[in-house]
């Protein structure tokens, strides 16, 4: 199923939305991503991913209240859906099961 296969960046965005809880809107997501990954997250990329996630049904969005900032324009808040949660857990499970079968993982050796 298409919806269950998460790309790396999609997974990050989805996690960020979950982490931001009630304040997950595009600009905040960008900032949060930058803070955690240390690489710049462009609005253009994030916006496209958000749009795709919504199409896949992994997130849903609602419009917030109008404020005096942002030129009076409302924010669109995102929220992870049940399907999104399932996809995130699945992704984590896949990783963990793979981690588990690696015998001795030497971090220093790879550096």
């Amino acid at each position, binding site marked *: 199923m298409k919806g269950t296969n998460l790309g790396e960046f999609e997974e990050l965005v989805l996690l960020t939305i979950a982490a931001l809880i009630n304040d997950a809107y595009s*600009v905040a997501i960008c900032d949060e991503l930058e803070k955690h990954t240390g690489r710049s997250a462009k*609005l253009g990329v994030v916006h496209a991913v958000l749009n795709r996630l919504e199409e896949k049904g992994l997130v849903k969005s609602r419009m917030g209240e109008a404020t005096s*900032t*942002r030129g009076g324009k409302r924010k669109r808040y995102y929220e992870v859906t049940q399907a999104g949660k399932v996809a995130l857990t699945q992704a984590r499970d896949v990783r963990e099961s793979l981690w588990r079968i690696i015998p001795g993982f030497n971090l220093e050796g790879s550096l």
Partner: protein
Amino acid sequence: MKIAPNSRPASPPRWAQKLLRWYCRPDLLEDLEGDFNEYFERNLKTKGARRARFIYVLDVLKFFRPYTVRKPSFLTFFIHWLMLGSYFKTSRRSLVRNKLFSAINIIGLAVSMSVGLLVIAFLADLFAYDQFHEKKHRTYRLLTRNELADKTVMNFASTSLKAGFKLRETIPGVEDVALIRRGFYSDARVNDETVIPLEATWADGSFFKVFTFPLLKGNPATALNEPYSLVVTEKTARKLFGDADALGKTVRFDTLNYTVTGVLKDIPKLSHLRFEALVSLPSVLGQKADSDGGILDWGNIYQNYVYLTVPENANLQAIQAGLDQLSRAENARLDRQKITLSLQPMDDIVFGGRLSNEIGVSIPTPVAWVLVGLALVVILSACFNYTNLSIARSIRRSREVGIRKIVGALKTHVLGQFMAESVIISVMALVLSFLLFLLLRTQFMALAPQLADVVSLELSPWLLLYFLLLAIGVGLAAGFLPALFFSRLQAVQVLKDASSLRVFRHVNMRKTLIFTQYTFSLIFITTTLIGYKQYRGFLSFDLGFTTENILNIRMQGNKSTLLKKELAEIPAVSQIATSRMITSLGSLYGATLKYKEKDKQDSAKVWINFVDENYLPLHRHRFLAGTNFKNRPTSGNETEVIVNEQVLKRFNLADRNPSKAVGKQVIMDDKPLTIVGVLKDFHYGTMDQKIEPTVFRYSAEESGGYLNVGIQSDDYPAALASIESAWQKIDRVHPLDAKFYDDQIEDAYRQFEVMVKVIGFITFLAICIASMGLFGMVVFTTETRLKEISIRKVMGASEGSLIFQLSKGFLLLLVMAALVALPVTYFFFDQFVLTKFVYHQPIGVSELVISVLVVMALAFLLIGSQTLKAARSNPAKVLKNE
């Protein structure tokens, strides 16, 4: 960065915001715009206003992606498509409901569009000229600019043969060069039985390489190489040989035998080169030099044409540089004359403008523009009517629009509906105007016989497509403003109270439209009147000699003395004279006159005519001094010349005293000639030319000229018949070519007659359309103000004051239109048009006054009839209905 509190906070570029709003899907727009704003504010603080703006624009452009771009246009189209049936229905209903207004709209559009159709057909034909040549886009013609010592410049379509040969031999980058010489008029004899006058063109071997005239028989590579080769068109071949195979047959011209080496497919009508046959150029090169000097002289630029093709992407500048170099070298050998050459693309030939010695059809570009302009003005006038009446009557339709909007129509839907309606109406008008076009076409072709020669105006699928495009364009232009008006209506307001609709808000715009219509109508009518007066003036102008009852017979190569003898026996013929050319018709014959006084020699160009001793008395030229020719030699030993006043003036001859000038000697063609008479100035050229030095020399025999026959008779047809039979006795091959001098003068100014007729017709249409529009507006105004009128009447207003009340607005508009139109027309004619004619009639006050009176009277009739009707209505009846 801190922003000063009193300064306006920086904001994103407006156009970028608009762009975003335009392309972005509505459901994504708001938060996206918000995001951009947030980033903008952030950048404003960290990076400054300029960079923030730049990033904003960049972002807006970057977000133009498949998933953000709106796709509703498809939906609107779909809705329009679904609604088309409904639009048709409502349009039809509204058309039927307002019969008067529909008729004004449709008839106005139809009539004006028929003019547009005519112009389109005319231009389409002109643009189609010469398109059958395969190398048309890389074919050029050599033009010649001839500058004389006295700074007179003439531009010729013709050039010298030498230029052509040199071009071929010395200038690189030229593919093929075709040389053409015209002036082959001779009788073709086949087996001494068939004798047919033939007009041919000399052409050399490269002719078929440059032009695409397919040969049905013969070899294009060799057909024109040998001297005395003849290539005939199919039509000529049939005339000469009937159905027999023409190839290889012999045709005799004068004493020389020519062999037919090819048969051409008939020349397409839309070709600027036209000929009945081609004669190989080597046939003429062998002949001895003619009176103009050697045929291969650099200065022999009047009869030859050079066409060349260049390879694709040729360097035209290099060729032009080569031509310049060539003329520099050759001009060094010329005496007080400078000839320069230039290239003219083949596509420009038909619109080539004014070149002397044009070989075929050529329309000056301004004529094309004037035609387009006239058609445009008339069409616009009809569009104005549509716009005006639709907006004026918008109350009726506003409820419909209101309902449509309430059930969900968007602005664009209403806009589309009304645009569709006007297009439907204009396409309906197109059907009518197409019929009118078919009628107009024959009338237009009959305007001047030359027109039928130039264009065919035949229908083709492309032409019909252009017609349809015109109708759609007209529909969109006419319907745009009303559609915009309707689309902006507020549904709630309209449905609550239609009268609150501010129809009169657009009064100024409507007044402007009416004002424009009437200004143009007035300009047109004054133009027609002034033009007509000028034209009549040209015809009745005192030329300085008489042209009455003089019949000019073209000799066509026959001995004039022979015909003279025959004609002398006809009782109706009172006088017979001979002349080389007919003056005052536009053709000019130049010569050089030298005058020597006290070792000082002066020479100048003079116009010349060769006549016999009867010519001057017959035309009643007035002698200021001296007499007619006394020495009347039969062959070239003339010793006398008769001059006009301008010659004395130009050479300051005998202190400009006519009686002293008689007896002085001048030199022409290296012959000493004595002045025996001085004539009063007369018009040798047409009205656009000044009277210049002109001389008459003696010649008893002019087989290439004319016989001028004075006729005194009560029965002209009988006199003409006897002249015809006299002609038959001396020439059985050529039909008699005889025209009355007065008719010839009329022909010479035919273009003005055509112009006056065309503009007159357009004027008529413009006035009709403007009047219809005005009528519509008056009917509407009186209808809407009927109650007001009734109340005024009840209160005691008289009929006269009511009519004044109702019509003063319109009349004021007309007065304003007159105040603009008359000075504009006067100034235009006075400063630009009439200055081109040295001898013209003054612009009279009468033309201006008459035009205003005509238009005013017509308008007053329209306004008066309607307002009178309204003023006479019974107020009780009107008011009872409330």
